[in-house]
């Protein structure tokens, strides 16, 4: 990247002198210098570990070699074969974890999007107490992750949790207190906690996006007799398309990779219904001491996310371009 002269700084047209010949932008080292720390950190924090992880996926890095990891024997594609072999528990469990994570991601992103949008639209017009609501809605996003999720762990305990106290003792919805952290309900629990964590982000992004929509559009549509729902479909949604495009992709990547929520909520006793893939890979590597297979799983996950992201960008870009045509 180089600095260039801005078009707005060209000589005024009224000046009598002939326009100066267009000069080539002068090459300068300054932009490179200010980029350097970021590039160095990016290489150290992301690129080298990723390349090393890629290499690890091709070696037999078990407990016998973790101390002399550079001497681990070459395994070819064996780690990948083990990871995807559906005839073995490793492959079956990875597939199950993948499907759980897919369902989790769709629900969390969808619900967070809906809640974020609803709250942002509801708070768009000024009213008394709007600031209080805005602050309240952002609390889950501002709370430290560990404190927030461990609190949910307490709330969701079967015998001592407040959730069951309300559902069973106060509302009488269940005869027997349900389990929320083991069995099939574990999926509902981890979705609820993740949505609680994620929706304020969508809310924040939508609030920012809504600021940029001119009020005249709403006034004009109101004069044409548009209902609030029609206004939302015809004005709000199209105008928020750029926000949506970026936000959905970012939320998808974050949620699909969510490690902390299941790790803190369930501890090491991960129920199959809450077996999210990042934590599954952690278990496969750290509990089994098989970093080769764990790395192969990570690379497969990376490829999946890369393909989905590229397809997403391709189609959203294509839609945008075709709509301009």
């Amino acid at each position: 990247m180089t600095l260039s002269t801005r078009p707005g700084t060209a000589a005024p047209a009224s000046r009598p002198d002939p326009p100066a010949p267009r000069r080539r932008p002068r090459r300068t080292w300054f932009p490179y210098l200010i980029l350097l720390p970021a590039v160095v950190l990016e290489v150290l924090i992301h690129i080298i570990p990723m390349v090393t992880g890629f290499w690890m996926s091709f070696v037999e890095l078990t407990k016998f070699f973790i101390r002399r990891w550079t001497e681990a024997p070459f395994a070819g594609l064996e780690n990948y074969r083990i990871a995807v072999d559906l005839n073995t528990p490793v492959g079956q469990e990875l597939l199950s974890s993948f499907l759980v994570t897919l369902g989790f991601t769709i629900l969390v992103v969808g619900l967070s999007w809906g809640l974020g949008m609803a709250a942002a639209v509801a708070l768009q017009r000024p009213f008394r107490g709007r600031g209080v609501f805005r602050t309240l809605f952002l609390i889950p996003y501002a709370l430290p992750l560990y404190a927030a999720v461990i609190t949910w762990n307490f709330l969701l305990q079967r015998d001592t949790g407040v959730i069951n106290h309300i559902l069973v003792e106060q509302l009488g919805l269940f005869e027997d207190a349900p389990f929320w952290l083991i069995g099939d309900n574990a999926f509902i629990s981890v979705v609820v906690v993740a949505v609680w964590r994620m929706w304020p982000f969508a809310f924040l992004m939508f609030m920012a996006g809504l600021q940029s929509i001119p009020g005249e559009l709403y006034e004009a549509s109101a004069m044409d007799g548009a209902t609030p729902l029609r206004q939302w479909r015809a004005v709000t949604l199209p105008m928020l398309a750029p926000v949506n495009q970026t936000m959905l992709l970012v939320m998808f990547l974050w949620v699909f990779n969510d490690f902390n929520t299941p790790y803190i909520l369930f501890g090491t006793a991960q129920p199959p219904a809450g077996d999210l893939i990042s934590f599954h890979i952690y278990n496969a590597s750290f509990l089994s001491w098989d970093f080769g297979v764990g790395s192969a799983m990570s690379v497969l996950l990376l490829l999946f996310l890369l393909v989905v992201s590229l397809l997403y960008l391709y189609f959203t870009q294509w839609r945008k371009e075709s709509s301009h045509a």
Partner: protein
Amino acid sequence: MRRRTLLSAAPLAAVTAAGLAACGSGSGGGGSNDSPDSLTYWASNQGTSLENDKEVLTPVLEKFTEETGIEVSLEVIGWSDLQTRIQTAITSGQGPDVLNIGNTWGVSLQATGGLLELGDAEFEALGGRDRYVPAALATGGAVDTDPTSIPLYGLAYGMYYNVQMFEDAGIEPPTTWEEMVEAAKALTDPDKDVYGMSLAAGSYTENNHFAFINATQNGASLNSPDGKPTFTEDGVVDGILRYLDLMQEHKVVNPSNAQFDNGTKSVTAFANKQAAMIINQNNANATIESQGMTPEEFKAVPFPAPADAVDDCASHLAGINLAAMADTDNRDGALAFMKFMTSPETQAELGKPFASLPVLVDGEPTFTDDTEQAEMFMEIYAERSAPLPLVPWEDQFETTVGQAMNSMFAKIATGGTVTREDVVTAMQTAQDSIRA
């Protein structure tokens, strides 16, 4: 910690590689004496809290400093973190000089090459092999190899019962599995939220112990003579089902116990009189008392086997081992420290607060003033305990079998049924997961 912030697209690859890349490959084992005046010691949590451990250990470590001039920097690590911390330390070579390990991990950790091998020269510095109870020393390494850890605290399971509840119901302490189940049924009253037994049914580290003990009582082994897993053997499956049936068939365990992910939670239920019996290692005494029970209110008997059991095994050979890291910068100091910690004086001093059994052949139990109870636990430790499989995949046995039992307990607790076939399938899956 770095490993817990997996937000990048390739979470594990990045994380593990970052850890590995940062440290370079480990150098050859053997340790050095580059820092002869200091030692770092990672202690496992033995007392009622991490703080309690520090309070107990600090004066002991000061004594060592007085004797040798070596400063000891202490860190007490909870059990939920210890294995991962050791793993990271071995991988990076940046760990402590001396550390505690669960003795069941002895062979698995030996296989990594990260712990200092204890050959003849090292044992000479430690005061000789003969000092230690042979079965306890055997947990320090695979058969016919130099061990990489020595026993520090001995532990054994016992079955604790509430004296008053037994007296009120007119029940004698059980001596067989069947008697235990009958007693538990008589003492269970779900309407009052009182159950015959409390189990840490959501703790894979506890569950795998009972898979082992019950299988051993049936005469079954978890590994073949050539070191392969044999989890689907009839005796193993029947033993696991017998344990699950305490909640499933006999209904003497509160289904909520399926969420108990550590032994302390069942101790709490016992101390709160919500359970008449718990099966716990002998260091539970301190925890039970810290939760409000007086020593007169509870007693312990051996964990019973069925009347027709092949073996009267009542515990796995439990305990804590002490090891030096292969990369230590104070090899001689580490060995001196290990000798000091396993000296008769230190053993006697730590035996009481940590409620541990002596690991020295001529050691006397100090963990309780109740001589009857002390003798009972010593007898279990010496006569009725067997070590978990002394194979490199032992750690994987703990996680795969223990987690499978977590899931089966969860299924029972949430209204499902676990059949014998389900246990066979779960054990087959666990066995197939192991890369021996």
